[in-house]
């Protein structure tokens, strides 16, 4: 039972957006409450949708999907354009990062999507961590809109990115189909 790749990605889009806006946006995390000026943050896992699109997705489709995803999340969070800007950027960078990390040309991976199984554990972690950090850095820069308190910016980026990575690894472990050799 192989689901149509389009249907699968549309479903994943809905699930990831709802997971982000209905659950993750509601849990405000804070690593320490003392010293009291550690900012509240939430993990952003929705870029995972862009990370998991099939290898042969053309760049223009990545960009447009990234923009749609970003605007959808912006719409829920009253942050006009900030998520869209960060997501379009990582959609553009995705192909280059994958090319740098994979031994073979991207066009040779047909009908496959980035995952721990296809890429190996470390390359996948490097790929997702790099793009997530870029995404968070851009997003929080736009959110704070000034470099005057760069400490808060870095603190928020690092804290949020690490938490997002934990959620992404958990998501990958939960939603990757295990070996299907058993009938």
């Amino acid at each position, binding site marked *: 039972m192989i689901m149509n790749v389009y249907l699968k990605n549309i479903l994943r889009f809905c699930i990831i957006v709802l997971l982000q806006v209905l659950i993750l946006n509601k849990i405000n995390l804070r690593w320490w409450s003392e010293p009291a000026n550690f900012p509240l943050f939430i993990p952003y896992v929705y870029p995972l949708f862009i990370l998991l699109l099939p290898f042969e997705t053309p760049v223009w489709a990545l960009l447009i999907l990234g923009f749609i995803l970003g605007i959808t999340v912006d*719409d829920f969070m009253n942050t006009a354009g900030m998520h869209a800007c960060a997501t379009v950027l990582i959609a553009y960078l995705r192909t280059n990062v994958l090319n740098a990390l994979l031994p073979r040309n991207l066009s040779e991976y047909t009908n496959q999507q980035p995952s721990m199984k296809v890429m190996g554990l470390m390359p996948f972690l490097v790929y997702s961590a790099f793009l997530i950090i870029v995404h968070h850095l851009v997003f929080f820069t736009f959110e704070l*809109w000034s470099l005057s308190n760069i400490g808060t910016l870095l603190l928020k980026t690092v804290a949020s990115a690490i938490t997002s990575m934990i959620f992404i690894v958990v998501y990958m472990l939960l939603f990757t189909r295990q070996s299907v050799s058993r009938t």
Partner: protein
Amino acid sequence: MRNFILFIRRFFNLILFLGLEIVSIVMIAHTKTLQGDDIVSSANFVSGHIYKEQSDVKYYFGLRKMNDSLVNENARLRIQLDQIHSKDTLSDSVVHRRLNPNDTTSHIVTYADYVYRSAHVINNSLNANDNYITIDRGSSDGITKNMGVISGTGIVGRVEHVSAHFASVLSVLSSKLTVSAKLKDGTFGKIIWDEKQPDVLIMEDVQQQAKVKKGDSVFTTAFSYFSPDILIGTVLKIEQIKKNAMQRIYLQSSTNFHSLQYVYVIENKMMPEKKQLEDSSAKK
């Protein structure tokens, strides 16, 4: 011409990328101004309805807490009511006549006319730089832009975007919103937020002569979109600023933004008139 088409084809991805980035940055720049605009907000149809569904589910789990807060608010209002009843305001006037609100000839003028509308909070954020609250009332319930929003215990924010059935409220926990405030002895200041803790507000530009001590209450003034004498918070810490001989006061916010369920939207019926007067005098 052919070269141009080739150029477009060669750099199509880069052009698309730059185009989309420019669109997003223009949208960000629009919202960074104080006025904002209504392109993207959680007051629209789809996100409003999804938030409403979610809040209907969550509603039952918070009933107990909400009951307690309503009882507390009732008790507080009863005390205020008793204070007003026990005061005989007409005792020293010469003629005892009934006050008629339509009687404009009498020298007692109704000073400001506030209408309160209750609304249910269906989405709330605390972690962003500019936090927004979505409520389930919109223009069809008479909500318009720039109305003040309070909770049972204190101030919440100001209405920013309105759709037919939803509105999004910019909360006090925002770098964009300032509220004018006064201390018990009548000293004015303004309330801002330091973008870090969701329960600490800062009152700035307070004159050094003002006598403040820890635990004092801070209230709203009649200058803003809030009705006067609504509690903002209590004084936590006082800081002297040598540079401009002012004080900065840290307040414990009286509204608990973590568990906001019901709010009141304030309509000031005198506001259009006041605004018109101020605008006409500013033009001269």
